[in-house]
């Protein structure tokens, strides 16, 4: 038996060595939150901070919300990576806090909104609404970093959706530690040294530092849109509850529909695989009309006179194009203010 156990131990040794290496480098900051805290601290004294690896954006945004700088902000931005480049420059004279996170699901939006409600005062809300927030097969578990806040949001909405646990997030994290692909990432992170992947601005928005990702093969599935078998009932219900609650608030809400690149949009419009995109769009449109939200932008790029060169990749606008799109949003907000619909921020003191 001893001999057998020794052999098994020997067999497991390289795996444990790999896991230890992964854990020590932790290129995606799955366990080690120190570099994130460092970025947040750096932002206290500087305009931008650099991120040298992928990181848990949810936790980062949560940390940002603890900063005293954001006790009172004029504009709060929620959304996915498609809204992550919305920054204060587009809204002169106003303070902006961008809480958009990559691949944001409805769970993310609700959790981050809940956190903002709890921790800060804001006057206006911009929500970048993506069609995949209704996809039951979005397959993203990153939102589970904010599971407690999501559950809190469900309570606030009086939703009958089941509270979530962060079990699967922990599983994914542990699996990553034992994954040879993560080992590859660790090695790359080690060999890359200090090449910034992303710049983060004080307002939480990002600046791309790396080149756009390589083009996917023609016809490859569109991010988070396939499979998209149906609109999830509980998502529809929770979104409805949320929008209803927002509509009752005195804080103006602008819904911004981030456009897709022309060829991507054409596929979303025509291919049977994306039938649910059309359903989701219809549902979102109806909801926005029902609650009388100002809805700007469009999934359709031609409706905004956008062309392929305005896009960084199949779903992301270039930052300058985003800034341009924000002109309309700024005007809408200015108009609302002129109409006196915007209440001044409450003094937390």
């Amino acid at each position, binding site marked *: 038996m001893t001999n057998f156990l020794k052999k098994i131990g020997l067999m497991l040794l390289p795996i444990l060595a790999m896991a230890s290496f992964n854990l020590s480098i932790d290129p995606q900051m799955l366990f080690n939150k120190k570099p994130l805290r460092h970025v947040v601290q750096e932002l206290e004294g500087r305009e931008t901070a650099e991120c040298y690896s992928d990181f848990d954006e949810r936790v980062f945004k949560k940390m940002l919300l603890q900063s005293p700088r954001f006790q009172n902000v004029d504009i709060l931005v929620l959304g996915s990576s498609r809204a992550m480049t919305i920054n204060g420059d587009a809204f002169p004279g106003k303070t902006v806090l961008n809480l958009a996170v990559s691949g944001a699901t409805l769970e993310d939006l609700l959790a981050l909104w809940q956190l903002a409600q709890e921790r800060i005062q804001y006057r206006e809300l911009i929500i970048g609404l993506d069609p995949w927030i209704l996809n039951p097969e979005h397959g993203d578990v990153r939102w589970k970093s904010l599971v407690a806040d999501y559950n809190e949001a469900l309570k606030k909405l009086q939703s009958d959706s089941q509270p979530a646990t962060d079990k699967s997030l922990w599983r994914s994290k542990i699996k990553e530690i034992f994954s040879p692909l993560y080992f590859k990432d660790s090695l790359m992170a080690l060999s890359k040294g200090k090449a910034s992947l992303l710049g983060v601005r004080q307002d939480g928005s990002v600046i791309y530092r790396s080149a756009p990702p390589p083009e996917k093969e023609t016809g490859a599935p569109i991010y988070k849109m396939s499979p998209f078998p149906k609109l999830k009932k509980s998502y529809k219900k929770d979104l409805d509850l949320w929008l209803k609650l927002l509509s009752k608030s005195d804080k103006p809400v602008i819904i911004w529909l981030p456009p897709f690149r022309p060829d991507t949009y054409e596929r979303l419009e025509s291919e049977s*695989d994306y039938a649910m995109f059309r359903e989701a769009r219809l549902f979102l449109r109806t909801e926005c009309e029902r609650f009388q939200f100002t809805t700007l932008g469009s999934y359709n790029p031609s409706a905004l006179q956008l062309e392929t060169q305005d896009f960084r990749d199949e779903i992301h606008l270039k930052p300058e194009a985003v800034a341009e799109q924000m002109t309309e949003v700024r005007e809408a907000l200015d108009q609302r203010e002129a109409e006196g619909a915007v209440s001044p921020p409450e003094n937390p003191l």
Partner: protein
Amino acid sequence: MLFNSLDFALFLPLAFLLYWFVFAPMGLKVQNGFVLVASYIFYGWWDWRFLFLIALSSLVDFVVGLKLSRTTHTHARKRLLSISLITNLGLLFIFKYYGFFADSLASAFYSIGVQLSLPTLKIILPVGISFYTFQTLSYTIDVYREQLKPTDDAISFFAYVSFFPQLVAGPIERASFLLPQFFKERRFDQRKATEGCRQMLWGLFKKVVVADTCGAYSDAIFDRYGELSSPLLIFGSVMFAVQIYGDFSGYSDVAIGLSKLFGFELKDNFKYPYFSRDIAEFWRRWHISLSTWFRDYLYIPLGGSRGGTASSIRNVFAIFLVSGFWHGANWTFIIWGLLNALYFLPLMLGGKNRRFLGEIAEGRTLPGVAEALAIAQTFALTCLAWIFFRADTISIAVDYLQGVFSLDHLSQTRELLNSLGIGKRALAMVGLKCAVLFGLEWYNRASSFGLAIGRWPTPARWATYYAFIFWILKDFGNERAFIYFQF
């Protein structure tokens, strides 16, 4: 608990160490008690509420077995056997088949203009119910036939029925083979345990690396079958064939290997079925524990092939249809069984069903041309039948088949393949995985599993172990459940 899960990765070493270091020195009864507790934890991890079903099945068969030993009256014995059959098959019917019968009856009445509203049961199918029901039934039937002495050791019997390595997806072990192993002192055998680890590694490779990859492609293709071209539909059915083989035989390999770690032996459940030269040989190599169960408890009692031609044909249809129905309460499984019966029948009627009893290409590296063609033909027939097995409804299967023989969308095959997210790299990778799976199985076809590399030089062996371990870890993304759990 899934074999390919983190939970199991923690459960296994803990159970192994407790079993050999803590409970083995305390005696056989305590050790068997531990097997029982571990098995119930393993099953209850999925849904503890269904533990009562296993306990009920075990209790009924244990008591029936004891009572059978105390009576010689034919009527009383038949009554006792009926109690076991009604309880076990009754549970199976309620949990697995009630909905199907209610729907079919309602549809039949609807077709003659009568609206029939039957009560519906909103219950989920308990994992592995078909497996443990058949396992425990084999005990009662063997005791009834006086081929097996009943046991009065409740713990061992309950542990036999719920033995965690093979509880949820087989192999279905006969009481006459597995139960006596609970009564013998088990000593740790390093050679056996090492072989067990190798077989587990092979099983996990088949499941995590091969089956799950092929499954993703077959799912994508079956989901969009209506708009795909013939080559893609053929590719989809081949992918499903590999998926179901890797998935199910992978589970059996892990189960057999795991049992070896705990000092038990299980019977082989698969013997390289896709190398079969005809369908009869395929069925001697595929899900052996189920085929032999049906042979011994259904086919032979019905008369087997001893009666006239008509009764032989009836018996062949009976066994294949029941086998299909065992897999699930859906007409698709019945048609799958029917197709296999139709494949098998000409061989049996022509007296050719036992042509290939020996090893394939024995003493040769490669098969001859005729052999290779026979293997390809058998595989093609099997893939065709798998379409019915995989499809949700018969009409989907028929449409899928029509697509296979249609020329529509042929020119768009490459674009369609891309739209499924299957690029050149992905195709090369799936090809490599299948080549490793079938290449090693062909190389080791005289052994009981593909990674039987005990005789290789140590460096080559260890390099192979590491390659497989890292490959599994790399692909260890989703904890995708084994297909046969649903049966």
